[in-house]
C-alpha cells in the first residue's frame, strides 16, 4: 500500500513537472545578439533576445543557461522586457532567479526569467539580458615583469548556450585595445579594430557550444577587494558613521622580479602598465569627517570632491599595486542622519542606504555590511532586492549596557551594479537616547556627593 502511494506520488510529481520543461521545447529564440565587453576586468555581456512561443501552451517563463565555469563567476543577471516599437520603447524589469534543472547537461547552471504576462502560442517577446562575470579573465603569462603589459585569456562559446533552438545569432566581443594576440576563429568570424565578431550563425540546436579563447591585452586596473567590511553605525543624535575596512589586491598577472622605482617614475607609459595607483570611491553627498588610513596611521594621498549628487574620494594606496600585491586600508566618513533614516507609515524606522562597494570598477569577493542599530532598538529586518546571508550580532560601544543590535548582511562576488538601495527596519524609542547622558550625569553627581560626604564625615577615633 505504502509502495503504491509512493509510486503515485512520483507519478504526480513527474506529471506536475512536465509543464515546467515542456515549455523548454516550446520556446525558440528567433534572433539573439550578444555584446561582450572585455574592457575592464569585470566582464559585462548584453544579450538581446527575441523569443517566440512555438508550442501550444502559453509559457510563463524562460531559462537562461550558463556554462559551469561561468555560473561560478556570475555576479549578477538582470533581464528587461522591451515593449513598444522604436521610439516608444519602454523597459520593464523582469524577475530573475537562479534555478536547478534535473536534466541539466554537464552541470549547466540556469536562471529563470519570468515574463510579465505568459507568452501565448505564436507570440514573441524581446528581452534585454545583462549578466556580469567576475574573475573570468585569466592572465597569461601568469607572471610578468614591470616592463611587460598584461595579456589575458577569455574563454567563452561563440554560440550562445541556450536550452532553446536559436535561429540566428551574432556575438560581438569588445577588447580594450587593438592588441589581440589570438582568437579562436569559428567561421564566420572576423576582427575589426577593437571588436571581434562571431556570426551570424543560423539554426543552432539547443545546448550548442563552440568554445573560443581570446588572448588579448588588458591593462585596466584589476582591483579586487578580497574582503570588505562596511560598518554603518546609526546614531539618533544626528549622524551616520560609516567605516569601511578594505583588503585590496591586484588580481591580474603576478609581478615578478624587480620593482624599479626609477623606471616606474621616469618611463610611466611603458613601465608597470598593468599596475594601478589611483582609486576612486563614490561617496554619498553631504559627506563629512572623511578619513583614509590603515593599521599604521593616516595615508596622506587622497583628495575629496564633494557635490550635490555624490562626493568623490580620489585616493592612492601607500604604494602602487602590481600584480599579486596587496594593501589594506580603512575609509571612514559621516553623513547626516536625515538623508538616510526615515519613519515608515507603521511607526517603525528604516535606514535606506546603498549596498555594495563605493570603489568604482572593483570586484568584491566577500562583502559584509554591518548595520549597527542604536542601543535599545528592536525587531530589526533587512529588505534587499537580492539574496544575502543575514544574521544578528550584538556590539558594545561607548558606555553600552545591553549592547547594540547589529544586522549583518553578507554577500560574495559583488560588482558595482550591486550598488542599489537597501532598507533596514527597526523600532526604537527615543527615550533610550537619554540613557547614556543620564549615566554620565549621575556618575558625576555621585562623585560630588561622595566627596561632599568625605569632607563632612570625621573618621577620627579620638576627638581633639
Amino acid at each position, binding site marked *: 500500500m505504502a509502495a503504491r502511494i509512493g509510486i503515485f506520488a512520483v507519478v504526480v510529481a513527474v506529471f506536475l513537472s512536465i509543464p515546467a520543461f515542456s515549455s523548454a521545447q516550446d520556446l525558440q529564440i528567433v534572433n539573439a545578439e550578444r555584446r561582450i565587453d572585455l574592457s575592464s576586468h569585470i566582464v559585462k555581456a548584453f544579450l538581446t533576445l527575441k523569443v517566440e512561443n512555438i508550442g501550444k501552451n502559453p509559457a510563463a517563463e524562460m531559462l537562461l543557461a550558463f556554462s559551469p565555469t561561468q555560473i561560478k563567476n556570475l555576479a549578477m543577471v538582470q533581464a528587461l522586457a522591451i515593449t513598444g516599437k522604436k521610439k516608444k520603447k519602454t523597459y520593464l524589469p523582469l524577475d530573475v532567479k537562479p534555478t536547478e534543472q534535473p536534466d541539466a547537461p554537464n552541470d549547466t547552471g540556469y536562471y529563470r526569467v519570468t515574463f510579465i504576462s505568459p507568452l501565448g502560442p505564436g507570440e514573441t517577446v524581446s528581452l534585454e539580458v545583462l549578466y556580469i562575470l567576475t574573475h573570468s579573465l585569466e592572465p597569461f603569462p601568469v607572471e610578468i615583469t614591470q616592463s611587460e603589459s598584461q595579456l589575458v585569456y577569455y574563454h567563452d562559446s561563440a554560440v550562445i548556450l541556450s536550452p532553446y533552438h536559436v535561429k540566428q545569432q551574432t556575438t560581438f566581443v569588445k577588447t580594450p585595445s587593438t592588441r589581440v594576440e589570438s582568437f579562436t576563429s569559428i567561421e564566420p568570424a572576423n576582427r575589426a579594430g577593437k571588436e571581434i565578431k562571431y556570426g551570424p550563425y543560423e539554426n543552432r540546436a539547443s545546448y550548442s557550444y563552440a568554445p573560443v579563447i581570446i588572448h588579448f591585452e588588458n591593462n585596466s586596473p584589476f582591483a579586487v577587494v578580497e574582503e570588505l567590511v562596511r560598518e554603518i553605525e546609526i546614531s539618533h543624535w544626528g549622524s551616520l558613521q560609516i567605516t569601511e575596512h578594505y583588503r585590496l589586491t591586484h588580481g591580474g598577472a603576478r609581478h615578478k622580479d624587480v620593482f624599479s622605482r626609477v623606471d616606474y617614475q621616469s618611463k610611466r607609459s611603458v613601465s608597470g602598465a598593468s599596475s594601478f595607483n589611483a582609486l576612486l570611491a563614490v561617496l554619498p553627498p553631504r559627506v563629512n569627517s572623511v578619513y583614509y588610513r590603515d593599521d599604521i596611521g593616516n595615508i596622506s594621498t587622497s583628495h575629496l570632491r564633494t557635490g550635490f549628487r555624490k562626493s568623490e574620494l580620489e585616493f592612492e594606496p601607500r604604494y602602487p599595486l602590481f600584480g599579486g600585491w596587496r*594593501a589594506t586600508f580603512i575609509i571612514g566618513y559621516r553623513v547626516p542622519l536625515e538623508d538616510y533614516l526615515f519613519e515608515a507609515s507603521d511607526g517603525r524606522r528604516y535606514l535606506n542606504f546603498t549596498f555594495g562597494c563605493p570603489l568604482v570598477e572593483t570586484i568584491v569577493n566577500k562583502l559584509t555590511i554591518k548595520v549597527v542599530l542604536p542601543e535599545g532598538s528592536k525587531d530589526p529586518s533587512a529588505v534587499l532586492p537580492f539574496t544575502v546571508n543575514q544574521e544578528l550580532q550584538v556590539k558594545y560601544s561607548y558606555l553600552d549596557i545591553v549592547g547594540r543590535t547589529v544586522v549583518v548582511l553578507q554577500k560574495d562576488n559583488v560588482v558595482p551594479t550591486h550598488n542599489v538601495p537597501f532598507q533596514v527596519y527597526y523600532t526604537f524609542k527615543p527615550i533610550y537616547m537619554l540613557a547614556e547622558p543620564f549615566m554620565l550625569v549621575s556618575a558625576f553627581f555621585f562623585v560630588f556627593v561622595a566627596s561632599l560626604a568625605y569632607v563632612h564625615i570625621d573618621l577620627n577615633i579620638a576627638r*581633639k
Partner: protein
Amino acid sequence: MAALESPQPAATTTAMRHAFGNVLSVLILVLIGVLAFSIRLFSVIKYESVIHEFDPYFNYRVTQFLSKNGIYEFWNWFDDRTWYPLGRVIGGTVYPGLTLTAGTIWWVLNSLNIPLSVETVCVFTAPVFSAFASWATYLLTKEVKGSGAGLAAAVLLAMVPSYISRSVAGSYDNEAVAIFALIFTFYLYIKTLNTGSLFYATLNALAYFYMVCSWGGYTFIINLIPMHVLLCIVTGRYSPRLYIAYAPLVVLGTLLAALVPVVGFNAVLTSEHFASFLVFIIIHVVALVYYIKGILTPKMFKVAVTLVVSIGMVVCFIVVAILVALVASSPTGGWSGRSLSLLDPTYASKYIPIIASVSEHQPPTWPSYFMDINVLAFLVPAGIIACFSPLSDSSSFVVLYIVMSVYFSGVMVRLMLVLAPAACIMSGIALSQAFDVFTGSIKYQLGGSSNSTDNAEDTNNAPKDDASAGKTDKGEEIVKERSSKKGKKKEREPADKPSVKSKAKKKALVLPLETSIVALLLLIMLGAFYVIHCVWAAAEAYSAPSIVLTSQSRDGLHVFDDFRESYAWLSHNTDVDDKVASWWDYGYQTTAMANRTVIVDNNTWNNTHIATVGTAMSSPEKAAWEIFNSLDVKYVLVVFGGLIGYPSDDINKFLWMVRIGGGVFPHIKEADYLRDGQYRIDSEATPTMLNCLMYKLSYYRFVETDGKGYDRVRRTEIGKKHFKLTHFEEVFTSHHWMVRIYKLKPARNRIRGRAKKLKSKTTSSGWSSKSEKKNPWV
C-alpha cells in the same frame, strides 16, 4: 587638597579666605593639568594620532601583546620576531611600568565599554601623565616652599620644553610616566621627611617601586636620596624623621625593586645601588649614636664614642675592602656602560661605540640648554638662594637635586629631562619669592599709612587671582594652621621655625613702590617670553613624529611618508616569516609596523649581533651576501636620503656601522673607508667605500634620476655612478627613495653538468673555509 577646618572660631574670616584660596588652588591645578595635556597635542593636530619615533613603537607592540594575551603571557613572552636567530625574552628585559600602565588604562576603558584602541591609549598616555607630573611638582614644591611656589613650579613644569620633547602625544616612551614617578617619589620622600609618618614612608617605597618599573633612571633616585641623607647627617641635621624617611625606603624599595624581572638581583649586586646600602649602615650608626647619647651622661658618652669610633673604623675598613675587592673583580667594575659614561663623560666614546652612536647620549651644547629650559636657566640661581633662606631639610634636598641633575645633564643630553623638573621647582620658588616680595612691598607702600604691619600681612594671606603670585607665606601658614584630619601634629613642628623667621624678614624686605612695579612687569615679561618659547617649542620643534616628514614649499605642504609606505609594503607583500635586515635603528619599527622578523633592533643588547650586521653593510657584495644568507635574511632594508635631502640616513650613520663592526671583526678597518680622516662618497672616496654593500644599495641606479647622481645630503656627486648588483635585487623603493628594499638573490644554480658541479663544489667549500674568520655565522 583636603578641605580646611578652622581651628579658632575667632578666625572664621581667615578660614573662609583659606577655603576660598584652596578652591582657587584646585581650580588652578585643574587648569594646569589641562594646559599640560593640551600643549602636548600639537603633534596630533599638526600631524595625526600616531606613535612616534623608534622606541615608542616597541612599547606599543608590547602593549598590544599585553592587551591581547594578558599579564602572565606577557611575563613569559619570548619574542622570536627580533634578534633572529637569538630572540629576546621581552618579559624579563623590559621595564614594564609604562606598558602595564597603558594596558591597565586600556583594560579599564574597555571594561566600561569605551572602545578606544590600544594605539589611542598609548598615544595619549604621555600627555595625561605630564598633567600628573605637574601636580606632583606642585605637591613637592609646596612641601618645600609653600603652595604659591608649588603653583608656579607646576605651571612651569607643565610646559617646560625639555619635558615636552619626551611627552608629546604619541611619544610613548618610558620617560613619559617615569618623570611623574620621579617627582612623586621625591615628593613622598620630602613629605615623609617633613611629617615623619610611616604611612608616607610606605607610599614612598611604593612610588619608588613604580619608578623602578618604569625607567632605568631609578638609579638617580637611589643615589640622590642617600646623598641627601648623608648631607643631612654631615651638616648635623639628623632627626628621627630622616631615619623614617630613609630606612623603610631602602628596605622596602630594594625588596620591591628586586621583584621587577629586569632589575632582579641587580638591586643588590650592582654598584649603582651600593651607595644606598652604605648610607643605610651609616644612618644606623648615627641613630645608635644619638640614642646612646640620649641615655648616657656626656662623660660616659665621650668614652663610648672613642670606643665605637675605633671599632667602627676597623669594621668600615673591612667592609670597604670587601666592596672594593668585589667591585674590582667584575670586568666593568660592576657598573653598566651607561652609568660609567655618566661618571666619566669620555668613557663611552672611548670604549662603547654602540652607546656613543646614539645622539641622545652625547653631551649637550649650550644652545640646547636654552632651547630646553629657556629662562629657567636664569631663574635657577635665584631659586637656590631662596632655598638657603632659610635652609631646611627639604630645601637642601632640592638644592642637591638641582646640583646633581645639572652635572648629569652636562654628561648626556637625554638627562636634560631629569634637570627640567629641578629647574622648574627652583624657578617656581624664585618666581614665587620674587612676587611675594614685590607685591608685599607694593601693598605695604599703598596701605602702609592706614594699616599696621600685621594687617598688611593679613591681607597678604588673602588669595590673589594671579596664579604665580600665591604667597609663600600664606602657604606656610596654611600648613601651620591646618590641623590635619589624621591628627598629625608633627606637621607643625618643621613649619614653625621658618614662618617666624620670614615674619621677621618681611619688614626688612620692603622695596620702593616704583621699583616693585617695574620688577613685577619685568618678571611678567620674562614669564611671557617663556610661555611663547614653550608654545613654539611644542608646536614646531618637538611635535614631529619622525616617521612622517613634512616640508613647507611654495606649492603647499609636502608629505614624505616613505617609511610607512615601505613598512606597509613589507607587511602585505612578503611572507610572514621572512627576515629583514637593516641597521638597528629601524628594528623596532619593522617589527611593529611591518610585523617581520628583524636581525637587530633598538634594544642594543647584543653587540656582536649588531657588529655582524654592521660588518655585512660595510663588506663587499659577495661577503655581505654570505653573512646575510647565513642569517636567513631575505630582504635588506636601507634608508637613503640623498634624493630629497633627508640627513639622518644610513650613509650618515655608516661610520657607526664600520666602527661597531670593526670593534668585533678586525678585518673591517675604519681607515679603509676614510679619505683624509673623512667619510666620503664622492670621487675622492676610497675603493673599499665604493664597493661596500651600503654604498651600493643606497646608490643603485641613483644616477638615472638626474643623470649626475647628485646627493642632496652630502652635497656632492657620488663617486661611482654606474654599477650592477650581482647578489641582490631591488624589490621596492619608496616614492621619495627614502627606503630601499633589496632581496637576496638565491644561491646560483650549480647544476651545469657533472664536472663543473664537482668543481664548483670544491671551490665553494674552499671559499667558505677561507671566509670562516670573516663570518661568524658560517
